C-alpha cells in the first residue's frame, strides 16, 4: 500500500492555470530529486492532461501527491473534470485520435512519459486521469 506523504490541490480554469500546473509539478519533481529528463517528462505529461481537462472537460482540478510504498517514492498527479466524459477509452488512448484541435497525442503521449497511468471516465459524469513517476531510492 502506498502512503501519501504530502498533497496539494489546484484549479484548472484557464490556459494560464496550465502554466501554473507545469510550474507546480516542476517544483515538486525538483524537490523530490528527479533528474532533469524525468522532471521534463512528468511536467510535459501534466501539461497534456491539464489541457485535456480544460479543453474537453471544461476545467477541473489537479491533485499532486508524494506517495511512498515499501520500495520507493513517487510523484502522482491526478486530473479530475466534470465534463462530458470519454465514451470510448480504447479509441481515445490511440495515437492520433482527436476530437479537438490537437494532434491527438495528449492521452497516449502522456501515458508514454510516465511509469503508471490510470484513467476512469463516465460519459456525462467526467474523467479522472492519474499519472505517477517513481523515483528509485
Amino acid at each position, binding site marked *: 500500500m502506498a502512503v501519501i506523504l504530502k498533497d496539494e490541490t489546484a484549479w484548472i480554469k484557464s490556459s494560464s492555470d496550465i502554466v501554473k500546473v507545469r510550474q507546480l509539478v516542476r517544483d515538486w519533481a525538483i524537490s523530490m530529486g528527479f533528474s532533469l529528463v524525468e522532471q521534463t517528462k512528468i511536467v510535459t505529461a501534466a501539461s497534456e492532461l491539464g*489541457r485535456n481537462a480544460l479543453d474537453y472537460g471544461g476545467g477541473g482540478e489537479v491533485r499532486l501527491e508524494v506517495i511512498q510504498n515499501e520500495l520507493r517514492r513517487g510523484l502522482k498527479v491526478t486530473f479530475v473534470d466534470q465534463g462530458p466524459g470519454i465514451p470510448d477509452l480504447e479509441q481515445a488512448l490511440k495515437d492520433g485520435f482527436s476530437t479537438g484541435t490537437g494532434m491527438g497525442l*495528449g492521452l497516449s503521449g502522456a501515458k508514454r512519459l510516465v511509469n503508471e497511468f490510470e484513467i476512469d471516465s463516465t460519459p456525462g459524469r467526467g474523467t479522472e486521469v492519474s499519472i505517477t513517476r517513481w523515483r528509485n531510492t
Partner: protein
Amino acid sequence: MERIPILKMGELLLVTIQVDMHDQLAITLQDDLTQQIVKHRAHGVLIDISSLEIVDSFIGRMIGNIAAMARMLDAETVLVGMKPAVAITLVELGMSLAGVRTALNVEKGMAMLQNSLKGKETFGRNTQG
C-alpha cells in the same frame, strides 16, 4: 496584450521565446509571425527556444505550423537551442517535428539561413540571365 517580441535583422526575423507560454500566447505568436513575414518580406525565421524548459504537443504543433506557414510565404524556419531533455521528451511524446529544420544554437541557425538565402540569390540571377 502580452506578446513575444519579433526582431527584424535584414531579411530575417528573430524570435526568442523566454517565457513559459500559455496556449493563447503561442497562437498570437503564430499569427504575428506570419504577418511580419509578409510585411518585412522576410525570407528566414529563426526561433530560439533555448530558455524553454518544456515543449508539449500544443507548442510543438505551433512550431510545426509556423514552419509550414512560413514555407508557403517563401520563408524558411530554423528552430534553435532545444534542450536535450526537451528533445527526449518530445520524441517519446510522439512528436518528431518532421519538416522543421533545427540547429544547435543561434549562430549555427543564422549561418544555415544565410546559406539558403545565398542559394536563392544565385538561383535568381542564373534564371534571370
